[in-house]
């Protein structure tokens, strides 16, 4: 069972209670959503810091708009769409700021951290590099489909609903994404690439 299916099963009873005004259910719902939303945001942005901001924003939006969720789709489908919108808004905001600013403020920050934090920082940085190196050339839709299906074990039919996309289009994006990423993986091994060329 994928993480998405697990979350869906866990939060479905909480959603109705939270909509009815149960504060504890609301807290449990938001707390339960946070890790997966952060994971999605990380994939959408390839930036751990942006993922933190987006995850927080998504929880606020879920809280504000929970009444609008009508259970016509799975909760995780709705949640993913909220996350995508938040990521999109964040990107637009950043582009707007970058047009105004001449340099990136964040790059100048040197946080005063202890060893554990520095290791965490290093890991986050490496992951960002890894994600960027494999994902960067992928169009956004291909990246999303590949991440959800191959990395998060989501079924293509679920992804079809989450992205509001025809199943055959999901399949086409997935195959193109796999081809791009796997070629890149094999390019790191010249001996394999050489054999592949024979």
């Amino acid at each position, binding site marked *: 069972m994928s993480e998405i299916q697990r979350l869906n099963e866990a939060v479905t009873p909480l959603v109705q209670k939270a909509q009815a005004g149960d*504060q504890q259910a*609301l*807290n449990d719902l*938001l*707390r*339960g959503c*946070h*890790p997966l939303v*952060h*994971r999605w945001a*990380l*994939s959408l942005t390839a930036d*751990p810091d942006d*993922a*933190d901001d987006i*995850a*927080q924003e998504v*929880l*606020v939006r*879920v*809280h*504000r708009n929970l009444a609008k969720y009508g259970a016509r789709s799975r909760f995780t489908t709705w949640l993913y769409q909220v996350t995508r919108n938040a990521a999109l808004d964040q990107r637009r905001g950043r582009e707007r700021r970058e047009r105004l600013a001449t340099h990136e403020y964040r790059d100048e920050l040197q946080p005063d951290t202890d060893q554990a934090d520095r290791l*965490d920082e290093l*890991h*986050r940085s*490496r*992951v960002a590099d*890894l*994600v960027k190196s*494999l994902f960067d050339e992928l169009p956004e839709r291909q990246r999303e489909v590949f*991440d959800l299906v*191959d*990395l*998060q074990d989501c079924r293509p039919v679920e992804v079809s609903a989450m992205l509001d996309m025809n199943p055959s289009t999901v399949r086409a994006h997935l*195959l193109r994404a*796999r*081809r791009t*990423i*796997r*070629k890149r*993986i*094999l390019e790191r*091994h010249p001996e*394999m690439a050489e*054999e*592949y060329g*024979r």
Partner: protein
Amino acid sequence: MNCTEARDLLLEAELAELRGEGASEVARHVRECARCRAMAQEIVEQEGALAQALAGVRPRVAADTAAAEAVAAKVLPLRPRWKRRWAAVIPAALAATLAGILLTNNGTPPAVVPSTTEAAAVAAAPVVDATSSEIYVVFNTDNPDIVVVWLY
């Protein structure tokens, strides 16, 4: 199926097929060919590493804190812009009205009602004290006991 065909299919194959599972041609080839199996394993390992790396990045903010902050943010939701603008304007209008009343009632009432000529002069050359508000203008006259507050 030869290796060239198989290696092209590896680029699009399901992960189970890359592991040699199932009855598809590519899965069977992976089981039988060591070189293609090595390539398939490399793909599985790298994609697994990517998935693990992504899953290994934890949010800086704990879920409990994030949820609490989201709930706190709901307490003071941002209202639509037109509501925020009116929220600022209404107290200003009330303050201006009150100021006008206080100023007009300040001191004794004028002993002499301004003549028509004086009123016309005031109307012709008012001194505008406050122009910043969108909803009122205060006109001072030569007579300190008469202040005109124009709300619009």
